[in-house]
């Protein structure tokens, strides 16, 4: 039984936090804000605890399994959640429903954990729903904002739609193979037309969650409408978890269909990078901008996935880790500014450096990392993605990816330019950054700088993957 606790310790820890929050909500009388540091502490403990007593194993028949790699990936997600709790503390403090927000976020995180640990289609589906339904509620947390309810509405409807399509696909797979277990599916999957059809329907669920073009259309609207805490959660954590399970499913379960999904990925990755970039070029709202930029980033992830299992898993895991730092730092700065001044427009960021040098540098570092420019870790992240993607020798794809990096640099620089170079009569006033947010930003910046320069990190990830993947 102790094995059970150790194997599922991360899930159990999150569950414990959920119940703690529930009790806080039900029993707590005082203002909820006071609980924020404690919640942050718990999330930090959750993150740190993830590194100890890691045990591999399978539970509930084949429905749940975990190992060092998955534990590491879960830790990345925990870290992300912790950082969000730090970075968005301003917003959270004002929120009337602080424990509920964390409850939902932790539920969703639990869903993510189970998602990447899932061993059959049922668990996959359920944990995907567990991961996404609370997010829809989270998206609506700015209760009085019209755009928030619009975003939440779009998210819940389109994810319901997507899961319906997914379920249809699963039902056909089940009909064609008679099993929902990943292990046995891997034995029986073949490329007959019905299975391809079913697989494509199944596949769209991932592309939807990852916001791959043309299944990405919800992304920007939802990101823009939702509170930044939710947006950053959606863009980083949710995407990361789905990317992990995506690779597992493709290489472990649907390996026989590799020729099918390989070309799908190639085409979709090109489309995603290109369309994401083209849309990002013209955005004015920083959240919307980051939405499209994250779509373009996903294109690069797809490029990596076209490689081999080990390579793509290693590079994507590494990339997601860096992406957590970079994207959260960018969202963090946006969150602070938006919360204090209500400004979310890139034009309004002009002359930010004059008044807020710290935030400006943080934003710049984050954006450079997103653009993949050294010495930030984003450079290594991108490079390993592309290296992984070129294993099969499809260098045209790499070339297109490289050129897309140029386009992406253009719009990242647009913000840098606004912040550092453009003059503004009426710049963002001096913003007092609270300690938590500052700490969060510093952690992110340190991560951005160090994660790339510490070579053994990648080696470590790769080693995990060669052992466990």
């Amino acid at each position, binding site marked *: 039984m102790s094995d059970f606790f150790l194997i599922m310790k991360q899930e159990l820890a999150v569950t414990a936090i959920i119940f703690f929050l529930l009790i806080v*909500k039900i029993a707590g009388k005082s203002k909820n804000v006071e609980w924020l540091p404690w919640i942050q502490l718990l999330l930090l403990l959750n993150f740190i605890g993830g590194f100890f007593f890691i045990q591999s194993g399978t539970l509930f028949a084949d429905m749940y399994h975990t190992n060092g790699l998955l534990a590491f990936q879960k830790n990345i997600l925990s870290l992300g959640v912790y950082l969000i709790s730090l970075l968005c503390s301003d917003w959270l403090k004002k929120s009337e*429903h602080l424990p509920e927000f964390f409850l939902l976020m932790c539920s969703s995180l639990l869903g993510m954990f189970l998602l990447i640990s899932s061993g059959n289609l*049922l668990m996959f589906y*359920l944990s995907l729903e*567990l991961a996404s339904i*609370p997010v829809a*509620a989270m998206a609506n947390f700015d209760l009085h904002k019209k755009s928030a309810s619009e975003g939440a509405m779009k998210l819940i409807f389109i994810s319901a739609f997507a899961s319906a399509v997914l379920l249809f696909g699963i039902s056909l797979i089940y009909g*064609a193979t008679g099993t929902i277990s990943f292990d046995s599916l891997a034995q029986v999957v073949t490329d007959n037309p019905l299975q391809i*059809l079913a697989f494509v329907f199944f596949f769209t669920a991932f592309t939807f969650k990852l916001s791959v073009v043309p299944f990405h259309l919800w992304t920007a609207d939802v990101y823009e409408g939702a509170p930044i805490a939710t947006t950053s959660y959606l863009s980083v954590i949710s995407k990361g978890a789905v990317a992990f399970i995506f690779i597992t499913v493709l290489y472990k379960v649907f390996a026989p269909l590799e020729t099918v999904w390989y070309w799908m990925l190639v085409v979709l990755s090109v489309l995603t990078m290109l369309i994401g970039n083209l849309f990002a070029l013209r955005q004015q709202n920083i959240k919307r901008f980051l939405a499209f930029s994250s779509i373009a980033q996903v294109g690069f992830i797809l490029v990596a996935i076209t490689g081999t299992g080990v390579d793509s898993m290693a590079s994507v895991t590494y990339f997601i880790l860096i992406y957590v730092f970079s994207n959260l730092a960018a969202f963090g700065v946006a969150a602070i500014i938006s919360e204090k001044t209500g400004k979310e427009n890139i034009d309004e960021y002009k002359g930010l450096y004059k008044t807020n040098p710290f935030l400006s540098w943080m934003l710049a570092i984050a954006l450079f990392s997103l653009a993949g420019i050294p010495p930030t870790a984003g450079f290594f992240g991108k490079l390993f993605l592309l290296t992984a993607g070129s294993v099969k020798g499809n260098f045209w794809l790499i070339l297109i990816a490289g050129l897309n990096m140029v386009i992406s640099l253009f719009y990242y620089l647009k913000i840098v330019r606004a912040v550092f170079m453009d003059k503004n009569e009426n710049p963002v006033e001096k913003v007092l950054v609270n300690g938590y947010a500052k700490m969060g930003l510093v952690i992110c910046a340190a991560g951005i700088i160090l994660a790339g320069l510490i070579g053994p990190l990648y080696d470590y990830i790769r080693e995990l993957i060669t052992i466990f993947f």
Partner: protein
Amino acid sequence: MTGSTIIFYLLAALTLVSGVLSVTTRHIFRAAIYLLFTLIGIAGIYFWMQYEFIAAVQIVVYAGGIAVLIIFSIFLTQQAGEKLPKQKMERKIFSALAVFCGFALTMVQVLQHEFPVSVAPVTSPSVNDIGRQMLNVEESGFALPFEVISMLLLAAMVGCIVIAMREKRENLNTEQKNIKRIPNDT
């Protein structure tokens, strides 16, 4: 043509016709009622297939739960006697086309596929079996999904409470502070 066949086709006709009516009628209450019919029709098909437990759950959860939920929400949001807004013809045509293509593709594939003929005897699962498996942690047990569902329902409940029971606006300014969207047609 046996009686069972006739019943099946009647059920099928009920399901599909009320399904179509449910998505086309312009009276929202009628749509809800047609939806109810469809759900009942499907429950009927479950009965027909001798999956009584599922049929029962279908009637309890869908016909009894979700349909009522929907009808209540219609009460909340709809003025009586109001017709539903019309959709643009263009959208209808495109949708019909896409849907038809999807349907055709699916049917062609499904019909072409040779499903293996089952060798095991067709038995309807007993409620007993279902219950035992539901809470079993061993092979072919569904305890974990059960727990997951419970967490999901908890989260959904909390979410619904937060969203639907929003308090009185304390600060009217929040509305003004809404994002000022600058049209970016440049």
